[in-house]
């Protein structure tokens, strides 16, 4: 019972290895999100092509 109480009070304590892996996952997700931003930017530019300049003013 005492061990359970200690565990509940302390919450989840990550090991250094778990912290390192979590950081790597977070960086990968950040990279993927940034990549998506670049992808949508490029897609918009190349899909529009010269049509922006050709629109009636």
């Amino acid at each position, binding site marked *: 019972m005492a061990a*359970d109480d200690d*565990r509940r009070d302390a919450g*989840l304590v990550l090991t250094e290895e778990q912290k390192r892996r979590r950081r790597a*996952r977070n*960086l990968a997700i950040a990279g993927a999100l940034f990549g998506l931003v670049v*992808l949508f930017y490029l*897609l918009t530019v190349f899909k529009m*092509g010269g049509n922006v300049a050709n629109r009636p003013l």
Partner: protein
Amino acid sequence: MSMIQDDRIEAVSALPGPSLAGVEDFLALLKPRVMSLVVMTALTGLVVAPTGEHPVVAAISLLCIAVGAGASGALNMWWDADIDAVMARTAGRPVPSGRVTPGEALAFGMTLSVGSVLMLGLAANWLAAGLLAFTIAFYVVVYTMWLKRSTPQNIVIGGLAGAMPPMVAWAAQTGSVSFESAVLVALIFMWTPPHFWALALVKSEDYARAGVPMLPVVAGQDETRRQILLYSLALAPLGVAPALVGLGGWPYLAVSVAGGVEFVRRALVVYRVREGAPARKAAMGLFGFSILYLFALFLLLLAEKLAGVAPLTGPVAGWL
């Protein structure tokens, strides 16, 4: 301690621990080696298609097809973790080894599946996106969930999913599907059974232990060797077909004929040599050559188009 507190401790104990997954585990879920073959065949489909989007848009389409293929690999590993755990070749995969939880693999696969289909729809067109969605669904639902555990024809029918990337790519470039893209699909479709059965001949004990009804397990080694030979005989002319429908030139014709002859020769060796180490060597030799064969044919179609080699215009090509 009250009943409620007991329940809370039980609940805390039942919670999944912190994720152990590293970035490399999620990359492994994408089956990078399978993905490389998909990239190769889809790239060829993109390049040999007669009309095309801007190269940047085409590159984004290729990325979507690759990610879609990886996503179906992740969903396959999520569903098949029980089989993977008892097979030596796959026991070290992220889910059976416990590094990635099934829930993580499912969420990862579904996110990438939906994301790649939507992105392809926006980047290219919705026909291509629909074909990619069909490919993913066919691989995950029809092959992984249904056929793989129920019939020795699993990889024959399921092979359609692996054969589709050139057609998806062709559709992304042209907005339509064509006879030429169907020929590329047929080539990979016919290549799949001898490729996998050559491996299954060597790994049949693994498949038997996992309860997967691969052909050598259900019909025996001799019947598998016969089927490998029959499919190889059908594959060899199909390998030449791209040159007859206006996709390949003289270099492709020469290599596809020579490659087809060598494929059938190796299948004959597998058919004849049935005992001991030479039999294993023959099967693994065919397996290795089959990968080289498919890569070479698609690489050659790609190189010919980029180098400006004129495709053949024979009676068949003209008629089509």
